[in-house]
């Protein structure tokens, strides 16, 4: 793995997270009305495909561009303001999420890719992200922890769809272009 290839891959997944913010949200019939961003799909993919270190670097690079003032979060949000808003904890949680997803992917290296990627996306992309996001919301909004968790529950169905997509994409890449599944390389 050359340094140049690492750099390009990190930039690619940072761009993917940004590009997902431009995609029209997946419409979920039973939850219409709740805004669901596709961006955490990019976070799951970064961790699962790139492994812990490069995966979290991709998320950090994306957040850096947002902080510099580019409106790259879904709905055209961005700038320093998002790091002072109520969901700031979730953005920081993305970094840990990609790291944990990558670590789980590595630790389950001998398992089938579909299973391993789904497990990584659940533990990292949902578990670790909410682990930071919910206490963050609780502190910033002055709400008790259980109420903050309750308010975040509406996103779980959307997250599960993203887990499924992550697993399918990882499986596809493992078959079609195994060298690009860097977490397994």
């Amino acid at each position, binding site marked *: 793995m050359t340094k140049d*290839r690492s750099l390009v891959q990190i930039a690619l997944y940072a761009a993917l997270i940004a590009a997902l913010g431009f995609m029209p949200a997946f419409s979920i019939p039973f939850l219409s009305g709740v805004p669901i961003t596709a961006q955490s799909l990019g976070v799951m993919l970064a961790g699962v495909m790139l492994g812990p270190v490069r995966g979290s670097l991709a998320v950090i*690079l994306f957040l850096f561009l947002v902080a510099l003032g580019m*409106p790259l979060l879904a709905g055209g949000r961005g*700038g320093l303001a998002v790091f002072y808003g*109520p969901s700031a904890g979730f953005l920081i949680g993305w970094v840990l999420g990609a790291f944990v997803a990558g670590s789980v992917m590595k630790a389950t290296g001998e398992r089938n890719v579909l299973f391993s990627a789904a497990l990584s996306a659940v533990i990292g992309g949902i578990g670790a992200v909410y682990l930071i996001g919910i206490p963050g919301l609780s502190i910033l909004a*002055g709400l008790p922890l259980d109420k903050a968790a309750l308010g975040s529950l509406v996103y779980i169905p959307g997250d599960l769809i993203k887990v499924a997509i992550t697993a399918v994409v990882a499986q*596809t890449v493992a078959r079609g272009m195994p060298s690009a599944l860097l977490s397994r390389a």
Partner: protein
Amino acid sequence: MISLYIGGTSWAHRLSARFKLVTLFIISLLFIPFPQYWFSLGLLVLVLSAYASLGERGLLALKVVRPLLWIFGFILAFHVVLGSYAEGVAVVLRLFSMVLIANFVSITTPLEEMMDAVEPLFRPLGFFGVSTRRISLAVALVIRFIPVLLGLYASLQEAYFARTGKRNSWRLLAPFALHTLKMAEHVAEALTARGGAEGLPKRSGER
């Protein structure tokens, strides 16, 4: 380049980026000793007048809070249910003023100045073999990749529409993933062929 920045020559534009970032940081720390609602309210009045001082475009920039309104409503509703109405108001005022102050820094500081202001923070990374040059290249690559990815997906969608009459499908995921990764491999090869991230020859006039 896409950015929140609003061009101008106001007093806020003339302040140095570093000064604005440090001020923002200090204000955000002040909420720890002053959690009361009157402190947030005072700041809110100050920051609203700062936006107003930028003229009409400054006032238009206030729309940044629009996507947050439903979250604020949700937070207030929870506090009302819990019986902590006063705290709910204080919290929402605090979030309102903080988001607006932070956004004020973003709209009055161009991206390049912001980048230059934070550059010294990256110097310690040189210790681990990460040069500021590599970081700049990574930023440039992301900015270039975003439209490429969107274009790639759009062309797949177009071909799919021509075949099936449908706009979107999960079936596009696999070709999109493989096309994208192939493209990234080409970019990496091209980068290496040109001397790599560190070895790009310096042109005259370049820093």
